[in-house]
């Protein structure tokens, strides 16, 4: 298990490649990448976090996923600080013997990371800046688990 919180960009391709290399007990790898998306005029996004709690919250979420599903590895990388549209904000990866475990664990990680890890997004555009509001659908997503 590897949990990383950093300002620097990460190499999504290399991380995916490393996750699906060199093991004969892994049958299924699922990865997710979250990108800075914009429908409109977004100049940049800024992500604030709670140093210390961020790492422990992500670790607790990943450990719970490893308890619930049969997983061989879990990776979470989340950036903080300023980012531009199209940049990668974060990624997760799961490795499991079977695809259902890899998929469900990945969705669980994303649902909890979204609403239970201390990150806050602020958008900066020509109309000024505003904090991204949490969506009711993201809170509702937790009731699946």
């Amino acid at each position, binding site marked *: 298990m590897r949990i990383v919180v950093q300002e620097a960009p990460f190499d999504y391709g290399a991380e995916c490649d490393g996750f699906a290399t060199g093991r004969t007990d892994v049958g299924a790898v699922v990865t997710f990448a979250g990108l800075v998306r914009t429908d409109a005029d977004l100049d940049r996004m800024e992500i604030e976090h709670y140093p210390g709690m961020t790492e422990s919250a992500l670790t607790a979420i990943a450990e719970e996923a490893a308890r619930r599903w049969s997983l061989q590895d879990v990776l979470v990388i989340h950036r903080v600080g300023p980012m531009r549209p199209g940049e990668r904000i974060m990624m997760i990866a799961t490795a499991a013997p079977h695809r259902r475990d890899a998929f469900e664990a990945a969705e669980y990680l994303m649902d909890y990371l979204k609403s239970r*890890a201390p990150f*806050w997004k602020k958008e900066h555009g020509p109309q000024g800046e505003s904090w991204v509001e949490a969506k009711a659908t993201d809170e509702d997503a937790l009731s699946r688990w």
Partner: protein
Amino acid sequence: MDVLYFAWVRERIGLPKERVETDAATVADLVSELRAREDRYDAAFADLSALRVAVDQELTDFDAPLAGAREVAFFPPMTGG
């Protein structure tokens, strides 16, 4: 104890962190003390349903006890991912 503020809570109160001497028994008691201080605190804590709290870096509720707590943090609902 250390009291931390994040995102718009930090912006409304105007600082990221402060040392608070308190005998508050619960988070809610601490919130009442802070609101009584100044308008900017009162405004930041006006709608508790829009806020989340962590005690010693663990998410908890506003009725959580503060005995032995070293760090309390207030912030809006999280928006990671």
